[in-house]
């Protein structure tokens, strides 16, 4: 099947070789994604040819071949609490770009499948975060403080707001 949408991530920035793409209504994860032509960047309009499969109970496009045909800004994220993000609101926002405001780092966990992970909580319930290795948080960075001062974990957000920041 072919879908058109906007890239939410680069290809293969996660240890499990996944990427995400969205259109105006929904998002979906790409697995075993490769590019046809130039590497797509977040915000690029792309055409994806893939086979529908299931991963972690959610649909994905496997063996995805991504063709980028127009550059553009990343789409606006969806505001969510950490509790909502934990289940992606029952899957409604699976694979979507979300913005978690005032989330505090709770635990600093080991690298899992090549990705550094930690959990954050805004008071509603925790969610595991997997930053893009080497960009948002270096996997080789020293451990985070066990109990840091409140740290806002922010994703890049266009327009007014806290913008991009990293924990630390």
């Amino acid at each position: 099947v072919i879908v058109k949408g906007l890239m939410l991530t680069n290809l293969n920035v996660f240890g499990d070789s996944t990427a995400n793409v969205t259109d105006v209504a929904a998002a979906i994860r790409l697995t075993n994604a490769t590019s046809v032509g130039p590497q797509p960047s977040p915000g690029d309009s792309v055409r994806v040819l893939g086979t529908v499969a299931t991963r972690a109970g959610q649909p994905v496009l496997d063996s995805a071949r991504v063709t980028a045909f127009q550059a553009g800004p990343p789409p606006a994220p969806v505001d969510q609490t950490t509790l909502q993000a934990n289940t992606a609101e029952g899957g409604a926002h699976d694979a979507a770009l979300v913005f978690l405001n005032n989330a505090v780092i709770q635990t600093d966990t080991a690298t899992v499948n090549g990705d550094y992970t930690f959990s954050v909580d805004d008071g509603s319930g925790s969610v595991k975060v997997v930053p893009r290795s080497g960009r948002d948080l270096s996997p080789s960075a020293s451990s985070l403080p066990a109990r840091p001062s409140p740290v806002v974990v922010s994703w890049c957000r266009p327009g007014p707001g806290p913008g991009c920041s990293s924990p630390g």
Partner: protein
Amino acid sequence: VLAGIKVGLVAPGTTDTLFAKSTDASGNVIFTGLPLGDYTLVVDTNTVGDSVTVQKIDSTHVVLRNNASQQQMFVRVGFPSATVTEARALPAGTG
């Protein structure tokens, strides 16, 4: 370009296949020496494959009025397009 797709010519208003051939390695099928008259071009979708679909036939009406008549028809096959929402609802294995 897909080979082995069965293309037929049927009498208009019927389902009677009068002539049929399969596409060659270049994706072409050529009918020659046809009796003058009108035909409707049909594609046997069972021969297209399970992951691609017939997306467009520019014209299905074949009209041969004299012995010099020639008509070229284009059939476009490809992978089906879907919105992300539609793709998420498709059964696993849909390519």
